[in-house]
């Protein structure tokens, strides 16, 4: 056996052993000096391309998953009943396509205040996470998708979201108030119980991270 094949086997074993995606950095750290993790991953992915189990990428992580085309014949052992409310689906889509996005922006896009049981449910499912604060007055918290989101929906990266390029090109992924003319007055006037911080509108949008 060549040394390279030994590395491949090791990587295969690590990925196979874990049910959750493993970060490429962690994989590289486990390999002996001189091993090229990226090349090995590519080779492994090709080897499994046609099999019943595929090596898939989830952001910067990798995992083995059963092939999608076998879905109909692999009856779920325990049917997961994750039926989301319409509001939760909309909010999840807004977070996924507009991330990082503040709560006020989500409300601006939907034209209505967020009710309880929307953000917390998505957070509990491990699909969204807080990601930095907007550098605007009030420093509102921003939300983004979490690792669990990519894995649950079988996406390699955020770029693989349905229609994401078309939406970007059409300018519809602008979370800022369409104009001061209307703003989110409707949201504001709704009052308690959800308070909206001032300065959330993010006109001088300036993300905390690159």
């Amino acid at each position, binding site marked *: 056996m060549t040394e390279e094949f030994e590395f491949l086997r090791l990587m295969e074993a*690590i990925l*196979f*052993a*874990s*049910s*959750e995606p493993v970060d490429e950095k962690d994989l590289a750290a486990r390999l002996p000096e001189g091993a090229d993790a990226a090349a090995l991953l590519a080779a492994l992915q090709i080897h499994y391309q046609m099999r019943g189990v595929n090596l898939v990428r989830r952001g910067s992580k990798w*995992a*083995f*998953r059963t*092939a*999608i085309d076998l*879905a109909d014949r692999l009856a*779920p052992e*325990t*049917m997961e009943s*994750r*039926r*989301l*409310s*319409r*509001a*939760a*689906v*909309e909010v*999840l*889509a*807004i977070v*996924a*396509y507009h991330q990082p996005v503040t709560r006020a922006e989500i409300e601006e*896009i*939907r*034209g*209505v*205040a967020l009710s309880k*049981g929307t953000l*917390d*449910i998505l*957070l*509990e*499912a*491990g699909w969204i996470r807080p990601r930095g604060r907007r550098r605007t007055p009030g420093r509102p918290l921003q939300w983004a998708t979490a690792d669990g989101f990519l*894995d*649950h*929906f*079988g*996406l390699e990266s955020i770029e693989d979201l*349905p*229609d994401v390029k078309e*939406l970007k090109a*059409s300018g*519809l992924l602008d979370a800022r108030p*369409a*104009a001061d*003319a*209307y703003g989110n*007055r*409707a*949201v504001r006037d*709704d*009052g308690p119980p959800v308070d909206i911080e001032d300065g959330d509108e993010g006109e001088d949008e300036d993300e905390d991270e690159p």
Partner: protein
Amino acid sequence: MVDGRGGTDGRDVTRPPDSDFEEDAPPSAGAAERLVLDLEGFEGPLDVLLVLAREQKVDLSRISILRLADQYLAFVTRVRDRHLDLAADYLVMAAWLAYLKSRLLLPVPEPEEEASAEELADVLAFRLRRLEAMQRVGARLVELPRRGVAFFARGAPEPIQATRHPLYETELYDVLKAYADHLVRTSVRTLTVEAADLWSVDDALRRLERLLGDLPDWSVLARYLPPPQGEVLATRSAMAATFVAALELARQGRITLRQEEGPFAPIRVKVLDVGGRS
């Protein structure tokens, strides 16, 4: 679990987008009536506008905002007959659309610094298209092959040192929830303390007794309320407590009260017990 919460909207979001659209914009004549009955299913005024816009059966970029405004105003009028408690944001939208409609119909010279009626209409059209896009991709998102449904992870993971196994399985949600629960538990104490700055009858009695000596003949009781301190509730409690305190002093025969011009007229007060001056 993520289940539940969807109960009130009555729409199954996991259905394919096609059937969702069908339900939202049926070309039938009964659509208007159904909108009324389904009010609870709407996610705010923008969502209502979107459903109404679909009734026009044209591309959203070519929608008639004037007609949409009429549709919405008619909708709100209809709904208010049955739902008197229609949420404020629906009414705010109605007021805004009525304003927009008047601007669109009567092209008066626009003030320089204000947006033109057309710009306002464009803003609304943009928001509708943006919301529609999010609803559409949301429906597509939940139609994607999902883990545990269409594909599966390793069923029997093996614990090996190569993968990072945290000592404890705790998610961010658990930590935040723990803190939130802790705050709720401990907040009860706080609220008890906070209530103390409302005016009690005792407070009002002490204050009235102190002021009794300065009362001229038949002065208006309301003038002797403590100065308002910003909090509406505090002011109200002061008013209620002062009223009860005045009744109490009247019962003790120390003052007499009079309200001559009927309900809601000023209540006047006069000191009876001259010897009670301090």
